């Protein structure tokens, strides 16, 4: 489904140059739940940005369904992101003046509101549909961000520390949830520093200083 070939990403130039992702190759199949495990600063977020086409690599290629993302026009990549990918950001930014349902449907057609309500219900946010982000707890906001990534039923979900600010019970639930989503023929790539969650994944990679370890 997604293949990366010798991916590298460096930030800055000269003295301050920093290689956040270093020659990473990875192959993710349909239905897989891939977890990328690593400490803070190891390059997890950066790798997810590359795989999802949010950033262009300094070198190497990313293929989605056999098509090279770096060979496409920016608008084509944007279209793939819009239709096929869902992203849970580490900082789950919600738009302050929009309600929970509207935040879930952000950038999408009005008609998805029904599905957004169902998702919020499943994520134990029933009754909070009309709440503004300022009226939600940190963990509740995180769950709204999860729903936002799922609302259009993407082929691939990229989840950057989706469990960072929720209790372990809810963390387990979110992972369970993502695992079910993969079971239904979708794909999930999740970054986390919490090795406890590794049991939910079908494949686990460790990452350290931009180097990806082998799959376990």
């Amino acid at each position, binding site marked *: 489904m997604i293949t990366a070939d010798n991916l590298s990403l460096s930030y800055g130039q000269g003295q301050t140059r920093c290689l956040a992702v270093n020659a990473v190759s990875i192959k993710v199949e349909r239905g897989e739940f891939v977890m990328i495990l690593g400490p803070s600063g190891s390059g997890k977020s950066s790798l997810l940005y590359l795989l999802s086409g*949010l950033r262009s690599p300094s070198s190497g290629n990313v293929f989605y369904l056999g098509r090279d993302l770096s060979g496409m026009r920016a608008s084509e990549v*944007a279209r793939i992101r819009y239709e096929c990918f869902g992203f849970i*950001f580490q*900082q789950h*930014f919600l738009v302050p003046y*929009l309600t929970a349902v*509207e935040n879930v449907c*952000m*950038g999408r057609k009005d008609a998805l509101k029904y599905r957004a309500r169902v998702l919020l219900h499943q994520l134990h946010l029933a009754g909070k549909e009309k709440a503004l982000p300022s009226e939600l707890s940190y963990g509740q906001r995180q769950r709204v961000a999860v729903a936002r990534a799922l609302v259009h039923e993407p082929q691939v979900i990229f989840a950057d520390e989706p469990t960072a600010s929720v209790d372990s019970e809810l963390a387990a639930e979110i992972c369970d949830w993502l695992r079910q989503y993969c079971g239904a023929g979708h794909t999930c790539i999740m970054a986390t520093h919490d090795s406890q969650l590794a049991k939910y994944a079908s494949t686990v990679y460790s990452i350290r200083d931009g180097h990806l370890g082998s799959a376990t």
Partner: protein
Amino acid sequence: MIIPFPGLFYWRNRAKAVPLFLLVASSVLVVGTVATLTGSVLMSVYRANVKPYEAYSLVVSKQAGIPKQITNEIVACEHVEEMVPVLDSKVKVKGLFGTEGRTILAVPEDRADFCLARIGLRVKKGRLPYAGEDGIAIHEEIATAKGISIGDLVGREVNPDDYLWGMFQVTGILTGDVPYGIASLEYFKAQWALDTGELDFAYLVFPREGYRDELNSYLAMLPGNQVLVRNLGTAERQFRSESQNMDLLLWLVNFLVVAIISCAMGLLNTVHLLGRMKEYGLLAAIGLTPTQLVRRAFDEVLILAFAGYVLGIVASKGVLIYIAKWILGPRGIPVSPMGLRALMFSLPIPVMLSVFSFATIGRHLLRLDFISIMEGRD
């Protein structure tokens, strides 16, 4: 429709949107109202000085009366329906920006009804003056402006500003498009300082229906050292050269004011938009293209600017109705309905506001590094 709907930000953040919205509306209100009032002044000058020449052309002697042979030439013209001997004078009325002259025509009693009908006037109250009577029928706007009515006196002996020589009693009130007064030629002639003997001093020449241009070309061939011809063309030219200066000044002032306020408002709006960069960054990350983002931002600016514009125009309309009814109407100053002119003068406000906001925000949106923005590195 894609969420969030354009304009939702302003709707939900009314505390931010309302000042901007009201600023647009109030500038449109001021500019629209001023434009309409100045337009009204131009309109009333047009009605008084140009419109009558749609009905007739005026031939005036440059010497002591129009020679018989020229009179015969005019009568011989096939395009002439009627030729009416006339003397004219003026009274002064207060306009919006200073005093304006209003013409009084002195015509023979037996031709007065014809002239009135052709100029588009009718007697509303009272009657026209009799032959040789020191009476005058004046348009209702002149009457209101001077605060006089039937039975009151008018003329230089009453008000030294009026050219109208002597003292006349108002016998009737006229209504219609042209703010004129009608007096008796027989009386005027008796008072006239210049003795023209048998000759007439001036003529109103009424063309046959549809032959105004032909008549005017004919009259243009009369000897220029003997008579002066004033027609629709000359009246319009004079009106235009006078009104052009006023319009130019107005455009200049308007342009400066509009440029300043719309840049200030554009800046305020840009601050709002820049405060929402994370929102735009998120939309970009989700997969909206820069062009889509730019469209969204533009829609939002347009909605705000034109909602303010519409409110401003409606408010201006209200203010003008009020001014017409309670302030200028009672003083005999007609206010034209708000028209294209007000829209034209005030349209630059929302347009420039939009362009300014958009020029600043559009640049940012097209070069958006959305990951950096979302991670808070910007």
